[in-house]
C-alpha cells in the first residue's frame, strides 16, 4: 500500500489557454486512478492557484450561458465535491484587489463539504515540498 501525492500548480489565467481546465480535469482523474493500481495504492491531488491563476477562481463565470461550455468554476466545484484540497494564494488575490468575497469558496449546491482555502504563499510552498511530484499548468 502506497500513496503518491501530486501537486497541481495553476499559474495561467482562465480561458486564454486550455491549461487551467486541464489541470483540474487531470486532478479530478485522481479519483478514478485506482483502476490502474494495486489494491490500497492511491494517488492524491492538491490544487493551488497562484499568480494570474487565481483569476480562475472568480465566481459567477458565464461560459455555459455565453458559449455553451462548462466553466472553470464548475470544475473547481467538482474538485471540492470530490474532496480535493484546493488552495488559492492570498497575496496574489490581494494583488488583483480581490478577496474571498470575489471567488468560489464552496460548492454547497453540488453537495460538497470541502471549501476552498485562501492561504499565504508559504502554505502553498509547504504543499509543494510535501508532494512527490509537481505539475505546473
Amino acid at each position, binding site marked *: 500500500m502506497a500513496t503518491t501525492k501530486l501537486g497541481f500548480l495553476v499559474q495561467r489565467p482562465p480561458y486564454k489557454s486550455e*491549461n487551467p481546465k486541464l489541470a483540474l480535469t487531470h486532478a479530478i482523474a485522481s479519483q478514478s486512478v485506482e483502476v490502474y*493500481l494495486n489494491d490500497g495504492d492511491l*494517488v492524491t491531488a492538491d490544487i493551488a492557484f497562484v499568480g494570474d491563476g487565481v483569476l480562475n477562481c472568480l465566481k459567477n463565470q458565464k461560459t455555459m450561458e455565453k458559449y455553451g461550455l462548462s466553466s472553470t468554476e464548475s470544475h473547481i466545484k467538482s474538485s471540492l465535491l470530490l474532496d480535493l484540497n484546493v488552495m488559492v494564494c492570498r497575496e496574489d488575490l490581494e494583488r488583483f484587489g480581490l478577496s474571498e468575497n470575489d471567488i468560489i469558496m464552496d460548492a454547497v449546491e453540488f453537495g460538497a463539504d470541502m471549501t476552498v482555502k485562501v492561504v499565504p504563499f508559504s502554505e502553498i510552498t509547504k504543499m509543494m515540498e510535501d508532494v512527490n511530484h509537481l*505539475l505546473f499548468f
Partner: protein
Amino acid sequence: MGKFTIGCFSSLVGSMSLDFAVKLSAAAIEKGHKVDFWVSGNATMLSIKGQRAFKDYSALMKPVQELMGKGLTITACEACAEARGYHKDNTLEGFKRHSMDWYLASAFDADRVLHIGGE
C-alpha cells in the same frame, strides 16, 4: 534504471516543447530508462497518422515511431483527441489512447514526473 513519466500539452506545431519532450525521451531511453509519455490537450496532434515532414514545421512522427520500437510507451488523452476529431482509426500504430487517470497512474511509481509545456 529509473522510470520517467513525461507529460506534454503543447501542440506539434507552434512551439518546440513537444520536440524537446521527444528528444528528452530519446535521451532517457538511450540511457536505459523506462519512459511513459503522455500527450494531452493540443499535444494529441502527435498521435495522428500521416504527418508529412516539412522543414518549416516540427516533424516528430518518425522519431516517435523509432522510440516506440525501442520501448517507449506513448499514450494520448482520448477525450482531448476525440474533441479535436482525432479518432482511433486515424491514430498511429502503437500509440495508446486512455483517459487522464492513465497519466496519474503512470506518475504513481515514476522516479521523475516531467510535465512539459502548455500553450
